[in-house]
């Protein structure tokens, strides 16, 4: 073909490429880490390898997985969202307050009659998270505050408001939640709420990896000048990313509310760090442009497997922080092998 700007074809070895790819693949390594952890814990405490333990781990995993998925979008876009933990607390408190005071729902409602309350609660919780996410986006896009400080500020404000609304004490739930956590934890590691989380995450994962929304998130984190030069409305997209992160944190607030049976202002304390740790263990780069949903999911699962395992094998509480630190460092450094297509 005449006039074609042909660059030299490259010598490749596709089979070797594929094998190397599998071996150094982020997800493969994480699954390996997971298997090793489960193996060690089960050896030290045979009761660890059981359905109830899996159920415990999955239940713990649920709330953090939700916010970690939102955080994955934020981190891939090159930002960070420190407000998610506080949003969990605030949205739970506001949902509880609304049901108890705003709607006057009765605490004794049982079974299917609880459904309307749940729906209202979930809407309110997600709405609160969404609102905080939009405030984050405003601070970042309009006031040009870097995400770390912008979301640190909203984190403080959310903590403040949840205390103001709740006077510091948990607000009791207006509903009985047995209908949504009714699976038998002895026979089945999943509960209805965890299944709900998995569905939400699957949808988010599809959007991240298969849709235009996800592609733009990667593009902005990779090179925001290039993204805007390609016609992407960077501000609008970042607004959606922070709104998504906030909304998922609101949903996590509802999850925690259902679990605790109460909206507690302190219920999300420190969860932002768990979420960020899960995302980074999952292989994302805090510089943006890199990260995968599968990695995040496994990262969160590893975190909670470690937490549960250490208690079951009887590590003393004061040593737990030290051991967790060592295990996380080990898990992350297992990825050194992995060949990232990072910038510089």
């Amino acid at each position, binding site marked *: 073909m005449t006039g074609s700007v042909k660059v030299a074809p490259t010598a490749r070895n596709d089979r070797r490429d594929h094998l190397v790819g599998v071996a150094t693949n982020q997800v493969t390594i994480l699954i390996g880490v997971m298997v090793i952890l489960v193996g060690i814990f089960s050896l030290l405490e045979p009761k660890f390898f*059981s359905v109830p333990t899996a159920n415990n781990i999955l239940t713990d995993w649920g709330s953090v997985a939700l916010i970690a998925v939102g955080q994955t979008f934020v981190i891939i876009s090159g930002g960070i969202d420190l407000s998610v933990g506080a949003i969990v607390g605030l949205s739970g408190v506001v949902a509880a307050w609304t049901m108890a005071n705003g709607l006057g729902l009765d605490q004794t409602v049982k079974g299917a009659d609880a459904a309307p309350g749940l729906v209202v609660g979930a809407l309110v919780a997600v709405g609160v998270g969404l609102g905080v996410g939009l405030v984050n986006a405003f601070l970042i896009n309009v006031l040009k505050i870097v995400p770390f400080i912008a979301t640190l500020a909203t984190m403080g404000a959310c903590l403040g408001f949840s205390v103001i609304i709740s006077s510091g004490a948990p607000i009791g739930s207006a509903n009985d939640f047995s209908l949504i956590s009714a699976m038998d934890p002895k026979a089945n590691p999943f509960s209805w709420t965890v299944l709900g989380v998995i569905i939400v995450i699957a949808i988010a994962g599809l959007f991240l990896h298969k849709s235009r929304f996800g592609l733009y998130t990667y593009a902005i984190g990779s090179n925001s000048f290039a993204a805007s030069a390609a016609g992407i409305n960077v501000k609008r997209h970042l607004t959606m990313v922070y709104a998504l992160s906030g909304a998922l944190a609101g949903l996590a607030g509802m999850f925690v509310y259902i679990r605790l049976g109460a909206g*507690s202002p302190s219920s999300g304390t420190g969860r932002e760090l768990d979420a960020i740790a899960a995302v980074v263990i999952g292989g994302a780069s805090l510089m943006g442009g890199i990260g995968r949903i599968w990695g995040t999911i496994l990262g969160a699962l590893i975190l909670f497997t470690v937490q549960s395992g250490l208690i079951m094998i009887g590590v003393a509480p004061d040593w737990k922080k030290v051991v967790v630190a060592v295990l996380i460092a080990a898990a992350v450094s297992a990825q050194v092998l992995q060949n990232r297509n990072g910038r510089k």
Partner: protein
Amino acid sequence: ASGDSTGGSAADEEITIAFVMGAESDPFFQAMKVGAEEEAAAQGVTLVWQGDPSNYSAETQIPIVDAVLANQPTALVLIPTDPVALQASVDKAVAAGVVVANVDTRVDDLSDVLTFITGDNNDGGSKAADALAAKIGYEDGGSYEVVVGLTSPTATTNVGRLDGFTAQVEAKYPGISIVDVAYSESNPEKAATNVNNWLTKFPGLDGIFAIDGTNGSGAAAALEAKGLDGTIGLVGYDAYPDNVAKIKSGIFTALIAQDPAAEARLAIKSIVEFIREGKTSTKAEVVIPNVVLDETTSADDLSKYTYVAN
């Protein structure tokens, strides 16, 4: 109390008691651990001591209780960080045939709980008000300013103490006004900052109620730095060794001490009794009184109530 059938039959099996407390970094629980370990050794049972390293919160405690129960202990001593949120965990334990006791704080529904042993935070708060009023030489018709250093808006123990303190002030010392409160967020340096600013803002400040050990440490340091130790009344809570030493030097007017070790010992003793004999002499609710430590307290009592860890 629990009438569960597993009660008496476990006498010959090895007894494992899981003890899930609030936050390991709080010396209160460290002192409790000492009592629990002593009693467990004395009774010849296995103690599993668990809890969050530093967060006093329901969301971190529930997974710990879940994991501990997965190990199928004989009994569970629980210090619930939230009365509503931990109810389900207690129900779950009882359903699995685990004997449950509450110490220090309780769940809403005590009907399945063997016993609830506590210090009285409300009473502690009102004793603090008495000690402070004595120090500032309260007279009717006078007007006095005091401040209260709190931990965080969500710390549940703060609530009872502050309620007791406020109620006692309103009832007995109407001339005292609580002019401000502030949070230390578990950081003694922040507690010192709060006191420093109060000293500037309220030059005539008469007294400080430091609601926990951290606030006590910070307030003591701030008063010492400004050379105001002894002139301004300072009543603290919890008998940290360092703070007890400062009663003698006149920095603390008084410390309200609980007896966490005694609470733990009684809980373990009752459980073992119940499992081995099918019943216990301990009542369903036991209140272990607070002690006021001040300059009149004997050296023996001072060292007896000081929180020690091993």
